């Protein structure tokens, strides 16, 4: 039997379909995945994301440690409560994971890592943290609920405890506030406004119930995937992994090469790649006709070939979209091989949808 989150009973009662997700028994959908998707684009939806790993990194040299461990520079976090998206790289510049890191104070940081990579991340972080005398602590006492959508903050606000409600209401995007053991950030993985709430596992059911009473739709990981794909956000294990670098994964913007004197794991490899020229890139695809793009389908512009890393039907657009890794110089039009047929597709720049609106012509 897989790990269960504090909300497992609620998911069962709601009739959610539960699937194994990196060893966790998680809801893939409650009723209709497409309706859940629309609920987030149009109003508000809640996701149990307690399977994601909350990891606290603390110690006098925590900043130095993370400036070495992460490709983005936590030195850019100029105030407590600020957040940064970054990759955790190996020495070859391959992506071990992508994560968000929050500065709580200059000696205390919180990261949220993927469920499937948690053990690997922890081992890697601990191995390198030792030299800095920094502690790496996995917080299995916490739950995590994402509330996303144009009405998410308004509906979730009254459900937050007093200690954190007021600072949460004042949050700007990519910042976090904490109080009473709750940690609320204005971040997400859907292309919509909203909160990601990290809270004591014992409080999870009451918070979830309050969200449901406020008219927030329960949403499964199925809808989370179509929402993130429309938002043009990479999924670890599909759109990137240890065999590719951030520069090949549309994530060059998350690598802080400046200041030049900062040494970080993978830096040398990325600099060599940058000098030699990055051979591949990740692009967005829109299928022109009927059909559904899926990971691993091959794509060709007649001259160059590539491969879909993610693909799905996009409910907001009513057509199929995907991400594909292709060589530099790949054309603007291409064909995707779907069950032996070559179907025309257009290369676009993600995101496909942002704040509920289509971003592709």
């Amino acid at each position, binding site marked *: 039997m897989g790990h269960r989150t504090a909300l497992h009973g609620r998911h069962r009662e709601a009739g959610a379909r539960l699937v194994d997700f990196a060893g966790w028994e998680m809801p893939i959908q409650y009723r209709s995945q497409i309706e859940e998707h629309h609920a987030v684009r149009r109003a508000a939806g809640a996701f149990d994301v307690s399977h994601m790993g909350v990891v606290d990194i603390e110690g006098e040299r925590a900043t130095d440690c993370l400036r070495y461990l992460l490709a983005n520079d936590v030195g850019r976090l100029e105030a407590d409560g600020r957040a940064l998206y970054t990759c955790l790289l190996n020495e070859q510049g391959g992506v071990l994971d992508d994560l968000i890191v929050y500065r709580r104070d200059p000696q205390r940081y919180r990261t949220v890592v993927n469920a499937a990579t948690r053990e690997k991340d922890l081992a890697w972080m601990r191995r390198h943290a030792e030299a800095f005398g920094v502690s790496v602590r996995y917080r299995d006492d916490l739950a995590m609920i994402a509330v996303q959508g144009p009405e998410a903050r308004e509906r979730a606000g009254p459900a937050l405890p007093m200690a954190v409600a007021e600072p949460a209401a004042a949050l700007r995007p990519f910042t976090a506030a904490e109080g009473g053991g709750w940690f609320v950030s204005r971040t997400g993985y859907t292309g919509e406004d909203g909160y990601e709430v990290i809270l004591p596992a014992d409080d999870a059911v009451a918070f979830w119930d309050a969200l449901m009473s406020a008219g927030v739709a329960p949403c499964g990981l199925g809808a989370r995937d179509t929402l993130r794909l429309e938002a043009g956000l990479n999924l670890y294990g599909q759109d990137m992994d240890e065999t590719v670098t951030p520069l090949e994964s549309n994530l060059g913007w998350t690598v802080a090469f400046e200041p030049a004197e900062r040494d970080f794991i993978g830096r040398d490899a990325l600099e060599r790649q940058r000098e030699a020229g990055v051979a591949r890139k990740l692009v967005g695809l829109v299928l022109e006709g009927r059909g559904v793009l899926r990971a691993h389908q091959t794509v060709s512009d007649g001259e160059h070939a590539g491969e879909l890393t993610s693909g799905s039907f996009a409910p907001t657009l009513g057509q199929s979209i995907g991400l594909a890794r292709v060589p530099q110089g790949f054309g603007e039009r291409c064909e995707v091989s779907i*069950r032996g047929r070559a179907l025309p597709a257009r290369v676009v720049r993600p995101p496909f949808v942002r704040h509920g609106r289509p971003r592709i012509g």
Partner: protein
Amino acid sequence: MSEVPSELRYTRTHEWVRDEGDGTVTVGITDHAQSSLGDLVFVELPEGGGMLEAGAACAVVESVKAASDIYAPLDGEMVGANERLADEPELINSDPYGEGWIFRLRVSDEGALDELLDADGYQEVLEAEE
């Protein structure tokens, strides 16, 4: 609980088959199948006129999650497909045994229909899967 109408025949791969009494059968996927697949967003319909063998993949339904083959339940000739599904694949979700039918076959051997599962037999397949 999934609906399993008693007047239909079934395959282990979750197609239902209705005898039209004129040498043809109508084929779709069961309530259980549509519910397991989730929201359907695309149906690749079979071409008419082809001869099919029982068990041959002849159509594809795609949900948000994945693509699934639909198999011919019996030997026969493809004589029609539900063109409405091209624009409204969700008919399979909303009415799997009615407006969500997928194709029609002129069967080579009408006796073979009796070899398919009846409702009780299919119900047992579902129970075994759980």
